[in-house]
């Protein structure tokens, strides 16, 4: 039997993250876990593999996975990598950066099925990557050479390789375009060995179409699921009547990856206070484009002008020469935040940096982004996945960028929070006239942008 009885988890300050939660996971059924950002979803999922975040304490309740207790050392050894497969929220941080994907999948196969032959393990890996819609041509790559969505599917393949009786998927489709997301959903709900699946998702279509039971968490309590909240009717906001001048102008961008041309002669212009959305299937080069614009990975060719002056492709050089700052809010919020510092200091430093570089200081972004005030004294490890994304966004806003690029910032957030953040971005745009580029898979988010561009076959249209 697999499940949780009366589980209560407390923070060091005594706040209840989970309060007497019961959960029964039956083989072959899909359980959806929903609830607002920070409501304890990931804590509950991690408890199933015997992990608690830093400082958290279990005060009551039991957890059982096929008769093993994950809170004992021997139980954990049985459960992790064997009885349970876990897909974490920030997939790029979860893969070993120094080993190729294939090597990692074979290791997973050997851990879970130690007595099988090499041929059988290869077969397991082939089946798993096909089920996870992972392109076999990417097997020889290192994780850093994968896009966010590809890394997510590589990890999904990892969990399929082990053929676990319990499959825990934390936002499994957040980095995927709608087509691939549908394939992946179909895959993990129809697995031949009939595992119990626990899926955390903000995707209401996924939850409604695929889940056999829905568990909604609200502030650590189990709640009877209400009708799913709908995103506010999407509407593109046209701001003001002032003439819109071009702020960012990128032309002739060529980006190459692994000898292949990922983007070919891409041109992009963004005007004052304009918000544009960039779409494209997983692995089409959206993040590469964003990182190039923000000065983290220079393209092979291309020029970039901001306010008419050409600027350097290296962010550190831009800062040294006092050129405009293009802020990047990345896909992997765990990697983007310094694990050693509190949110308060992160934001404080960002504001200082803005003042130092002579950019106008922005307002306090914390309340704008619907973050509770008590996150200020926490380190990233003590934030929920959605909170981390919002802190990364708050840091970018606090440093008063000339252009803001957001890469899937709302993918890990529930509909209400997403809509709140988009409102905050609109407010910011109106006040500071900052142009914004949103990279998103979600059509309802893209609908809020003034223009929607799509990357197809290396071109941006």
């Amino acid at each position, binding site marked *: 039997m697999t499940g949780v009885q009366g589980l209560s988890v407390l923070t060091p300050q005594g706040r209840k993250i989970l309060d007497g939660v019961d959960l029964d996971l039956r083989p072959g059924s899909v359980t959806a876990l929903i609830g607002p950002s920070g409501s304890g979803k990931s804590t509950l999922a991690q408890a199933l593999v015997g992990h608690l*975040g*830093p400082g958290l304490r279990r005060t009551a309740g039991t957890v059982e996975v096929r008769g093993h207790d994950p*809170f004992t050392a021997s139980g954990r050894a049985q459960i992790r990598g064997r009885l349970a497969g876990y897909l974490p929220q920030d997939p790029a941080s979860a893969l070993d950066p120094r080993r190729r994907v294939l090597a990692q999948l074979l290791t997973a196969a050997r851990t879970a099925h130690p007595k099988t032959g090499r041929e059988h393990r290869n077969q397991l890996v082939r089946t798993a990557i096909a089920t996870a819609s992972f392109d076999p041509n990417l097997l020889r790559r290192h994780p850093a050479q994968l896009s966010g969505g590809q890394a997510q599917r590589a990890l999904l393949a990892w969990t399929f390789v082990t053929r676990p009786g319990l499959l825990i998927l934390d936002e499994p489709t957040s980095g995927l375009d709608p087509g691939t997301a549908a394939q992946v959903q179909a895959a993990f709900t129809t697995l031949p060995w009939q595992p119990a699946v626990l899926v955390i998702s903000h995707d209401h279509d996924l939850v409604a179409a695929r889940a056999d039971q829905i568990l909604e968490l609200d502030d650590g309590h189990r709640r009877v699921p209400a009708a799913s909240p709908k995103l506010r009717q999407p509407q593109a906001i046209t701001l003001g009547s002032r003439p819109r001048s071009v702020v960012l102008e990128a032309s002739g961008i060529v980006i190459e990856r692994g000898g292949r041309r990922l983007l070919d002669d891409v041109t992009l212009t963004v005007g004052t206070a304009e918000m544009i959305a960039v779409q494209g299937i997983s692995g089409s080069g959206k993040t590469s484009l964003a990182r190039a614009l923000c000065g983290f990975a220079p393209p092979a060719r291309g020029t970039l002008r901001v306010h008419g002056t050409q600027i350097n492709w290296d962010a550190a050089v*831009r800062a040294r020469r006092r050129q405009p700052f293009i802020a*990047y809010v990345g896909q*992997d919020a765990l990697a983007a935040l310094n694990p*050693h510092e509190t949110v308060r200091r992160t934001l404080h430093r960002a504001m200082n940096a803005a003042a130092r570089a002579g950019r106008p200081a922005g307002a306090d972004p914390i309340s704008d982004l619907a973050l509770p005030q008590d996150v200020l004294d926490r380190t990233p490890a003590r934030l929920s996945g959605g909170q981390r994304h919002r802190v990364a966004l708050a840091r970018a806003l606090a440093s008063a960028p000339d252009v803001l690029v957001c890469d899937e910032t709302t993918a890990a957030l529930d509909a209400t929070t997403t809509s709140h953040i988009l409102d905050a971005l609109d407010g910011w745009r109106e006040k500071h006239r900052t142009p914004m580029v949103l990279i998103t898979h979600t059509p309802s988010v893209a609908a809020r942008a003034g223009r929607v561009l799509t990357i197809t076959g290396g071109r941006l249209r």
Partner: protein
Amino acid sequence: MSGLRRWVFALPVGAVVTVAVIGPWLAPGSITAPVGRPFEPGGTAHLLGTDVLGRDVLARVLAGGRTLVLQAIAATLLGSLAGLSVGIGTARTCHRRTAAAGQRAVDAFAAVPAVLVLLLAASGSAGSDVVVAVAITAVSIPFSVRIIHERTSRLITTDYVCDARARGESGWAVIRYDLLPGIAPVALAEGGIRFVAATQLAATAGFLGLGAGAPTANWGRMVRENSTGLNANPLPVIVPAVLLVVLAVGMSALLDRLAVERAGGLEQTGQLA
């Protein structure tokens, strides 16, 4: 990490360092004048007996640790400081050639045997304890630089460091907030290993008769001087040797503990309290 476990490691180290540092003031009687026949066993008159020249072993043990411990501590601290500055500096610099040249120079220096450096330095200015400390520092710097450089170049490519540099934060702020907290556990563990090496080298220097000359007491030299009388009175060899081992092992274990704590400790496993 419970406070108790930390004390278990801190106590012996603290005791040895205290004995070494305040010992010379506590030494009963002269450390150079003979008080009996050579290698008298310990007794009521002389707690640890006498050494090869009939001098009081207790007095010499108390007097013989200060130089050695201070040499080891100074060499470790100076080595860490130099290692941190050069390691972080070469990892951060944009001038690749300067960084590569610095690395090669450090590697070349690491290839020179430590004892050779000690002998050369000591023969240059004989009888100086400070020169011995400087030589030990110089010998240990290359290892520190390598490890700190490796760790820093890993941290410097993380998204949060890239972001801080893109925002236009000062180099000092990036080092203070983004790099040092990540380097600290490594630097502590590495400092522990170097302290063991520095203690050994300081004892070797005493053993070889480098630094302050013969009549002064030195734990390292005591081991050599009195090894001939192990059968009659083993204490003048065993006591300084044990003190050296406790100091070296205890200090590296203590720094390891601190490093684990800095790194956030082990994984929480949710045992009911």
